[in-house]
């Protein structure tokens, strides 16, 4: 099934960050080779008037740009950055990222809620990056954000779904899409998130710092597609006892 987000049909459930890549040329290749629909772009990396290269020149016109407020320390800065980002990119998709801790790079959920309240009213399609918290997710759903983006593990740690139980509560209880953002280090982590019922994954470090970012993006794409397909079919439950593929008592039911 196709994912609908912010009023747009999204074919690829792999969203890609652009902040840590070794060069901008790779962005174009990753988008093409891994068939990406949505990329995040940190506003602080977009040049207004640089004599040097501009990251936006490497993003194909039909790709959806989700501007990212990274670097914001509070809701006021995030709102200003989002407004500048919209002006620079003509995109009203915004990932609200407010980090109040430069050591662990954890998002400030309280400030994020405040920023989302304003940005939804300003007409943005809002995608808040949060620490996985069900109550915060419900508050954001009530505000009118398009999706919530809880972290699987702290940014860049590649540790996978260390917050799995908390992610499950959000996926089970909120009606808006859940996009797992941050901490995913391997394709299998992404597949696991999709099998849980996440609607998409946003990957940056694991692709950008890979030896071969293009092929790693493709690997993530395959894992995400596999996880989603399995979720839609229905994942079988784990059992503590063997379950023969040919029923042992089938004869009693005329099998």
């Amino acid at each position, binding site marked *: 099934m196709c994912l609908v987000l912010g009023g747009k049909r999204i074919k690829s459930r792999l969203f890609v960050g652009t902040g840590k890549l070794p060069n901008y040329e790779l962005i174009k290749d990753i988008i093409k080779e891994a068939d990406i629909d949505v990329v995040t772009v940190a506003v602080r*990396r977009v040049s207004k008037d640089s004599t040097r290269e501009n990251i936006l020149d490497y993003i194909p016109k039909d790709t959806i740009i989700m501007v990212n407020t990274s670097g914001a320390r509070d809701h006021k800065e995030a709102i200003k*950055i989002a407004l500048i980002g919209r002006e620079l990119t003509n995109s009203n998709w915004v990932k609200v990222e407010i980090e109040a801790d430069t050591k662990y790079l954890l998002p400030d959920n309280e400030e994020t809620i405040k920023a989302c309240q304003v940005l939804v009213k300003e007409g943005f399609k809002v995608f808040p990056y949060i620490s996985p918290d069900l109550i915060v997710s419900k508050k954001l759903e009530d505000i009118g954000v398009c999706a919530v983006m809880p972290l699987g593990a702290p940014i860049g740690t590649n540790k996978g779904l260390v917050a799995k139980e908390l992610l499950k509560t959000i996926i089970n209880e909120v009606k808006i899409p859940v996009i797992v953002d941050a901490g995913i280090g391997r394709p299998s982590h992404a597949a696991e998130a999709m099998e849980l019922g996440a609607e998409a994954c946003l990957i940056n470090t694991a692709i950008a*710092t890979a030896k071969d970012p293009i092929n790693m993006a493709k690997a993530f794409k395959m894992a995400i597609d596999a996880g989603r397909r399995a979720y839609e079919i229905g994942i079988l439950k784990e059992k503590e006892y063997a379950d023969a593929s040919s029923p042992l008592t089938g004869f009693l039911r005329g099998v």
Partner: protein
Amino acid sequence: MNLDEFVNLYEKHKKRPSKKDAIDILTKDEITEVDYIKLLNCYDLDVLEVAARKAKDITERYFGKNIFLYAPLYISNFCSSGCIYCGYSCFNKIKRKRLNINEIEDEMKALKKKGFQTILILTGEDNTKEGFNHLKDAVRFARRYFSEVLIETSPLTLEGYMELVNEGLTGVTLYQETYDLDTYKKVHLLGKKRDFKARLCAIERAIEAGVREVNIGCLLGLCSDYLKDVFLLSMHAMYLLKKYSKVELSISFPRIRPFKGMKFNYTEVSDLELVKFIVYTRLFLKSVGINISTRERSDLRDNLIGLGVTKMSAESKTSVGGYSKEGHSFEQFEVSDKRSLDEIIKVIRSKGYNAEFTNWVMI
């Protein structure tokens, strides 16, 4: 910050570790203060190689494959302090110059044309009202041209920093020079800079005034026990990180460079020592930026890309008015890496990294 406590900790553990002890430390996710002291005292090249690989991974995790480039801009060499290691010292009989606002704008235009988006404005230790107003004008102008505007000047009052933040200041660089009190007294002979504690506390005023980025450092070679200096610098950084979790913090390990008329015997710090400091500090302070300036040789700077360094100055002039008018005045120190910005970008790319010009948007 209780410096004595950290000095005692350093003195207690400053012996060379066995290779096995050092390797055991490298297997940890988080290393302690004592582990860090042991690593600083380790000279085993095999251990350093293992650590360098880990440092590379950590740096990429936090900063991506990026090297941020900036340019220093010296706007005045008036100085009321007598620091025996500095070319701008009031004891040094050199031509003093304060760029007027038109000259400052010419310099900024020249840097902007090259592609810089981050500027570090420097002055001597000028504590006059005239000097502050001059700095304030420069910050106001810089905001028109650059995304990030940092200063490296004498410490200001909280109100002074706040005034500059309102004009567009985004960051402050302030080096303690040395964390060894005895050495500090010996090398700072005159002026407000003689007050060790006042300087140590000043960076917190900048943070409280609202700058988003601070850079601290010590001048390697001032104190003969430079390992202790590096350890105490990192303790200072750790203290700031814990107290001000929102601020972006970076550190520098500048080594003393000669200047014209220098009459000062300093301790040589080898390339190996510098690499050790960068690599082991990266393991200890994972999220902290590490800055390397053009005072280091080009071949060394090239090899440091990927080992933990996140910021570099490029095509720097350390004379007042050096960008728009070649050889305008006396240099604060002799630049080692004299390559053009384009040459440096080419090297960064060849190493598999992206040359970035800003990490902030002026809001």
